[in-house]
């Protein structure tokens, strides 16, 4: 409890991070309760097409087919965040396992895994994601898979680096000497000490995943049954001149979310690694 209070004290010093947290919390609230406020189906062609925003009926306007942009954004928050979080969770899960094994056991295992990781890192990741989604048919599953596939190497490297350092720490060696199993050492001794940088990079990875999803959607590789922000922009990119609001508001939602996640990530980084904390805040 004291640790938490201490953490919050350090986190609070970064004003941007606090703003980010507030924004992110609001977005999460919208994602959770938005459908209550906007109970309509986001796909319903509720009004006339191309209604300007700030009207009484459609506060953020309507799109090409007369669908309400505000409803789309509220429902899209769920999809975009879901994709971001699930993809990150998958990437972090795989990355931790691979990185932990490589970093803890070292030697040949490490060599092999690192070659594989380097290999995946060499491939231009977005190009790779495009190929994967195209091949496995655009859908929420393939999008999440593709993002996870291109994201795990970074986590693996990070975790491996942490493990390589921590493995030589004396408390780890003490555990070895005491006869603890590798599993215990990896998960009880080392991992909790490596978790801060993982959390920080995971928060940034959620942001990146949302961006990647939106880019895929923009290229027409989104899930046709999921109204995500990226899908909204992708679908209305050709009307950007005719009805700026159809891509502006979802775009703004992405920017705000990604921005908030980045700010929170920075705040976490400051608060979790006081040594690296930024000056003058």
């Amino acid at each position, binding site marked *: 409890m004291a640790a938490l209070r201490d953490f919050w004290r350090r986190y609070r010093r970064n004003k*941007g991070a606090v703003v980010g947290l507030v924004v992110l919390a609001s977005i999460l609230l919208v994602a959770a309760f938005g459908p209550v406020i906007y109970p309509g189906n986001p796909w319903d062609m509720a009004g006339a097409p191309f209604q300007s925003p700030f009207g009484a009926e459609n506060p953020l306007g309507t799109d090409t087919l007369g669908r309400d942009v505000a409803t789309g954004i509220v429902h899209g928050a769920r999809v975009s965040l879901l994709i971001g979080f699930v993809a990150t969770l998958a990437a972090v899960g795989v990355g931790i396992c691979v990185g932990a094994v490589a970093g803890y056991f070292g030697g040949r295992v490490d060599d092999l895994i690192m070659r594989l990781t380097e290999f995946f890192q*060499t491939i231009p990741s977005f190009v790779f994601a495009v190929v994967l989604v195209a091949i496995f048919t655009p859908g929420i599953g393939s999008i999440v898979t593709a993002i996870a596939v291109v994201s795990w190497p970074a986590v693996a490297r990070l975790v491996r680096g942490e493990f390589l350092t921590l493995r030589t720490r004396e408390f780890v060696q003490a555990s070895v000497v005491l006869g603890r199993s590798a599993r215990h050492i990896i998960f009880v001794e080392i991992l909790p000490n490596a978790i801060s940088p993982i959390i920080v990079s995971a928060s940034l990875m959620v942001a990146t995943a949302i961006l990647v999803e939106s880019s895929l959607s923009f*290229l027409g590789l989104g899930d046709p049954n999921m109204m995500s922000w990226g899908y909204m922009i992708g679908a209305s990119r050709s009307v950007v001149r005719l009805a700026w609001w159809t891509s502006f508001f979802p775009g703004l939602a992405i920017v705000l979310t990604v921005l908030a996640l980045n700010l929170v990530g920075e705040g976490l980084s400051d608060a979790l690694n006081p040594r690296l904390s930024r000056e*003058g805040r």
Partner: protein
Amino acid sequence: MERLEFIAQRTLKGIVVLLGIVVLNFLLIRLAPGDPAAVMAGEAGASDELFLQQLRQQFGLDRPLLEQLWAYVANILSFDFGFSYRQQRPVVDLLAERLPPTLLLTGTAFVLSLAAGVTLGVMAARRAGRWSDSAITVVALFFYATPLFWVGLMGVLLFSVTLGWLPAFGMGSVGVKLGGVERVIDVGRHLVLPALTLTLFHMAVYARMTRASMLEVRDQDFVRTARAKGVGEGEILRRHVLRNAILPVVTIAGMKAGYLLGGSIVVETVFAWPGIGRLAYEAVLQRDYNVLLGVFLVTSALVIAVNLATDVIYSLVDPRIELGA
């Protein structure tokens, strides 16, 4: 001598990675659903079994997968990247045509973003904690958080449609007779928006990296040593902090060259830039296998080459690097 050995070793390693990429992509794409012969037949507007057979035979699609792979790898070694079914041309020609525009675009964006990013990062670090630092950080974060295509779309809306200052698409005016210098200026004008779009995002990345790196370096012991020698702050920044801070930024920038190439898919699509990114996107949609493989190989080779170059430059600049160690 050591350096040559190092380069040779890195090149060899790069080739191995490249071969791995060939195999991976080949398998991924060949095993995917979709019969290329049918696509070609579809494009023709009609299809019959005879025609499909003809196409399969002609392009070796009826042979076992392993044989196709082997033939492909063997061909790669002789710089034969195969034939594009869809475009009816050798893939090498396509790549050769599309590579220079992409290199121009990504190269410009790389240089611009690095220059702008490092400058901003240094400015922010020098003003750490002041409002101008926050302002720079907010701007950088904003572009970092903005989807590339959105920046592109908004750029077109503002500079091409509303203001009419810059062309919105293409790599040059067509149908106008232009002299050498005029042509360069013309291409330059077309380059502005797509390059700027790519630049803004990466500039933000580099600015943030530079700032963090600067703040880390300026607290290091040798900077204190320089102060103890009575060296002025400006000179400390130039001679001690900058070099040590920028080196890792440039290295990481080199390693992330793949992100620029990935971003060029989106940007080249938005701006009708006739480069390899758009070729890749079209190839994916049309399942133009050989083109896709070729694009992958070339982009991966580019990334490997850039990585190698950064490694070598790093080894030249940083004396601590015991080559190969």
